[in-house]
């Protein structure tokens, strides 16, 4: 068992080697990198997001899959500090510096991983013309009063469709609490 652990640690990739594998043209290396992504953890989130926004579709697809694995791994039970670190990194991918599809992916994952620590950033995006709807969907999923507060703040938005959508989210959340 001890030897196996040592062997595993010796094989443990670094963020740099794993990203090199993701960007390589070798399908086997990319697949291995996806499998090993959770061994590296949250430091991979932003580099994976950048690769997901790149021009190589195979690398982008592998990066998205690895990103999902890292995010969900960090949200496992009894891993609170990893979850918080993952939220911080995912929020970085929601800014306009990232391509839309990367922002959408990060927002989707924040719906699962995020807590009160994500609601400020998500609330700030509700009126974003490009990804406001995706921010709303993420907030609707995150339990707790911080999400309700973030959604309610958008009820003052000037755009009717945003207000109606936010009302829908608040109704859905209230309905789930009733059940």
């Amino acid at each position, binding site marked *: 068992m001890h030897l196996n652990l040592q062997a595993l640690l010796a094989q443990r990739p670094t963020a740099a080697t794993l990203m090199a594998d993701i960007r390589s043209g070798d399908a086997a290396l*990319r697949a291995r990198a996806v499998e090993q992504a959770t061994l590296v953890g949250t430091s991979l989130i932003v580099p994976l997001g950048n690769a997901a926004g790149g021009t190589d579709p195979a690398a982008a697809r592998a990066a998205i899959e690895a990103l999902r694995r890292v995010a*969900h791994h960090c949200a496992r039970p009894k891993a609170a500090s990893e979850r918080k670190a993952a939220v911080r990194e995912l929020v970085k991918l929601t800014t306009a510096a990232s391509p839309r599809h990367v922002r959408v992916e990060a927002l989707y994952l924040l719906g*699962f*991983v995020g807590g009160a620590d994500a609601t400020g950033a998500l609330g700030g995006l509700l009126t974003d013309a490009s990804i406001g709807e*995706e921010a709303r969907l993420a907030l609707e999923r*995150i339990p707790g009063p911080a999400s309700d507060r973030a959604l309610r703040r958008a009820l003052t938005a000037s755009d009717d*469709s945003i207000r109606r959508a936010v009302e*829908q989210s608040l*109704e859905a959340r209230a309905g789930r609490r009733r059940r």
Partner: protein
Amino acid sequence: MDEHRKVTRRELFGTGAAIAMPAIVPASVIGRPGRQGANDRIRVGVIGTGGMGTHHVAPDTAALCDVDDGHLAEARKRVTQGEPFVTKDFRRVLDREDVDAVIIATPDHWHALMTVMACRAGKHVMSEKPTAKTIAEGRAMVNAARTHNRVVQIHAQGRSNPNAHAACTFVRNGGIGRVRRVDVWHPVNFTTDNWGAEEPIPAGLDWGMWLGPLRRMPYHHQRCHFNFRWLMDSGGGFIRDRGNHALSIVSWLTDNDAYRGVVTCEAKGAPHLSGFFDVPATMDVNWQFRNPDWTLTWSQPGKANPRFPGDWGATYTGDRDDLVVLGGDGGCDTEPKAKEFKAPPGGIEIYRSPGHRENWLECIRTGKRPVMDVEIGHHVITLCILGNIAWRLGRKVTYDFARERFVGDEEADRMIYEPYRAPWSLEG
């Protein structure tokens, strides 16, 4: 089409004065199921007329709905008795007083919402498998059926197959002893070498209505008809499709429909990285039930039982014998020992359906629960969904059927529910 048009109570309940009085008083007006005369015709509308929907369009279909003009035109040719109402907006079908019941054969992400809205509008429903996309949707469907006292059958039609009935009679009457494990095998999920770059939306397709409550995404022909199955968001792979069939038969034969205990679920599978489909290419799932203890597995690819081989099926292993059941849909087959078995006097009699559609229509007339009632469908699809959740999370999950919640996994609990794109909502 204006997706964002608010659905009013008047529209939902179809009280428009302009609608002509129907020639036959429909079940929805009379009220509860079971009040209609045995010979009264039940007027059926079909929502979603491509794919599986093509099989549901009968010569006397009263209404046809699809978001694709091509599907509608083909379906119209199959209606030879009378002039069906034709629309691209399912809400117009639900408005109609001259439609008593609807068959929903759309992609998965519409099943729950349309079922709930149809029940509120007083329509009986037969909805295609999979029952629902999420566990919360399945629960909403059950609640709507019960609240509005509608007959809701899931079209996982294996339970109407005589061979499946024979297998169920055999196993439930102790033909293999106590069931210890069931191993389901199935071919792998489809893959693609396409990366899904946005394409122009074809003329005649309302992509916004096709997406409905689903997250917004660019049109690509492999995201749409048929191939939506290979995206986790819209399809969930074979386990949420054929899995609904196969596990329906498993649940029936193992008398598991009413199981309210805890199940653990683990899943492994190779991700598909050579194209934009995101369901795993291969998948192995293991469920452990307690009290009684038994194991269920799903393998893609799996190994067919050489004694009674087939493309997909399950081996039921008991403490005295085993039995193979092939398929799980309308094409079920099983071994001669089950087909030749007769339940002993005083033995367990299994619900017999004369045919899945016939059973549904009969239940609308009699008020009896159908063979694949929505609550059974909800139970079965929960197992399929658990497999996908365990795979996506990369860890073992424990699910409590009584509470309809995971045990000690807050992230998994968030996967019970999927927020809807505006303006779609399951709330009344």
